[in-house]
């Protein structure tokens, strides 16, 4: 039997504190996730700084849908499906580019304005008396109608109806706010292309790991532990702790450290580690950045911004931002057992280069396919993807620190090594898999 024949049966695969292996390994469950969950939720598309000028575009995907984000002639940002209305050819294939005032299809030269409307068709009289005006093609490139640009972060929801942007994210937007506020000018800029790291595992394993404070001291003993050891040996000859040591060594912090860091959850699957402090709390500033912030915001407000050291904030379903180090990771599902992770970095506009240098270093040390930290993470996810094929036990366990009655308040706090945020994600998974009244699995 396929879950596609009875879509609502997938809701039985997730309990309050366990998840059946099929939500990780079954292709038909993955297909339902793409057709429902990823259409019913607000998905991160890109950042406005990627398309500063009119005609600039950025091409990407939302679930399995090719889309592009473009700056229209009136400066507004549009998200369009990346296909020619005529016969389906993708209109752009570069990741970033400038299309001028129009998109032109390389196949039959149909042209579109940058809001997607059809501009021209060569030798148009061939379409007289064929009811062209009633066709899908005549409508031009389809625009995603639900787009929200929140302080230059562009999100889209493919399905009409359902939850509004503000309600979906609620107070969790405070993590994005904090990352932006860390710029003395209150502005971020994407720098360079993202790292692209391919994993042979389900996308949820990666998202779950973002708030898994029960693994670093185990999985990363081999990398962070070794840096610590080598640094202990070397440091007698050196005054300053190298940036790389500051970035990696905190991963070896003991259980008690992570327990006290705390986890905060919000409604609809969002949450973050590092409520009280985090592995990012103790970065050295030798650049004058802190003074610059006090100048820009006043002492009190600057301290408030900089003392917020949230570690990882998960925006359900597939985004993570790390405010204190200005990185963003997008977990793009490609199949039940394939996930592409993109890791982006931002410049705090107006801040000294030292901060960008640390951000770029952090990204390559932790998020790259060449990362000694990432290697062991990938190893455990992929072992799980294979191990889940054992049929005797078909369940993933998420009971750590589960005392019942979760997800009631708008915001809840837990000891840091809890699996509460994973349970929170699964509650959202069930909530957004099908809109109310739509458990048929048939798209409108």
């Amino acid at each position: 039997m396929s879950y596609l024949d009875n879509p609502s049966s997938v809701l039985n695969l997730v309990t309050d504190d366990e998840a059946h292996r099929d939500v990780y390994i079954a292709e038909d469950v993955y297909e339902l996730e793409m057709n429902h969950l990823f259409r019913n939720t607000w998905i991160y598309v890109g950042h406005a700084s990627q398309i500063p000028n009119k005609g600039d575009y950025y091409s990407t995907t939302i679930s399995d849908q090719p889309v592009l984000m473009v700056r229209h002639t009136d400066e507004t940002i549009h998200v369009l499906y990346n296909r020619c209305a005529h016969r389906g050819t993708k209109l752009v294939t570069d990741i970033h580019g400038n299309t001028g005032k129009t998109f032109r299809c390389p196949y039959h030269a149909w042209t579109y304005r940058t809001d997607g409307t059809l501009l021209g068709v060569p030798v148009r009289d061939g379409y007289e008396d064929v009811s062209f005006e009633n066709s899908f093609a005549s409508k031009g490139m389809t625009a995603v109608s639900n787009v929200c640009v929140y302080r230059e972060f562009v999100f889209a929801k493919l399905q009409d109806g359902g939850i509004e942007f503000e309600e979906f994210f609620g107070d969790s937007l405070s993590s994005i706010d904090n990352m932006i506020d860390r710029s003395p000018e209150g502005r971020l800029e994407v720098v360079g292309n993202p790292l692209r790291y391919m994993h042979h595992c389900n996308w949820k394993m990666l998202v779950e790991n973002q708030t898994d404070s029960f693994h670093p001291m185990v999985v990363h003993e081999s990398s962070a532990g070794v840096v610590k050891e080598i640094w202990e040996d070397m440091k007698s000859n050196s005054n300053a702790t190298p940036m790389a040591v500051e970035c990696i060594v905190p991963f070896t912090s003991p259980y008690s450290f992570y327990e006290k860091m705390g986890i905060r959850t919000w409604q609809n699957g969002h949450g973050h580690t590092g409520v009280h402090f985090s592995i990012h709390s103790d970065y050295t500033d030798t650049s004058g950045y802190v003074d610059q912030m006090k100048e820009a915001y006043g002492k009190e407000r600057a301290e408030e911004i900089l003392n917020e050291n949230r570690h990882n904030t998960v925006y359900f379903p597939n985004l993570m931002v790390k405010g204190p180090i200005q990185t963003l990771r997008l977990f793009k599902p490609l199949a039940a057992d394939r996930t592409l992770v993109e890791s982006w970095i931002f410049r705090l506009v107006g801040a000294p280069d030292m901060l960008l240098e640390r951000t770029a270093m952090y990204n390559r040390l932790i998020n790259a396919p060449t990362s000694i930290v990432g290697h062991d993470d990938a190893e455990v996810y992929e072992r799980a993807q294979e191990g889940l094929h054992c049929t005797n036990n078909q369940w993933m366990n998420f009971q750590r620190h589960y005392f019942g009655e979760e997800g009631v308040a708008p915001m809840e706090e837990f000891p840091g090594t809890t699996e509460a945020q994973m349970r929170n994600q699964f509650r959202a998974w069930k909530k957004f898999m099908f809109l109310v009244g739509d458990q048929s699995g048939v798209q409108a």
Partner: protein
Amino acid sequence: MNLTEVDLVDFVIREARMLDEQQYEEWLELFTEDGIYWMPLEFGQTEEKLTTSLMYEDLLLLKTRVMRLSGKRTYSQLPKSRCQHLLQIPSVDKIDATNNDYRVFTPFHYVESRNDEKELYAGWMKHSLILEDKRLKIKLKRVDLVNCDSPHRNIQLFI
């Protein structure tokens, strides 16, 4: 001491062999104290520190990699990876004894294998070498993958 083109070519070929034979302690000795191993993320990248790279590592980080590879709890190396370099004949771009500046350019194919997976990478490596105590040392090794910006699986050893 006058270095010839043959000396420089030999150095690059010997370095690749050390990596294939996983003689890492010996390999680390090839770097100067401030030596750097750089693998850019973007094609033709010129910025070293203010944008993302795949690797930009000093001796501290290179030593960490080497030590980690043999760790008992290095799960991604259980079982271990193997690698093989296939080098085109290196071309010597610069021999400048006065400024102690030697440059070698080497196209390569590189295979890394672990469990049942085998990945092929192709690209170009550029060695910037200097003479130190009568031995050639690596000041900068830059590795440009032909598909540096593609999605990659784990690359765990050294190209």
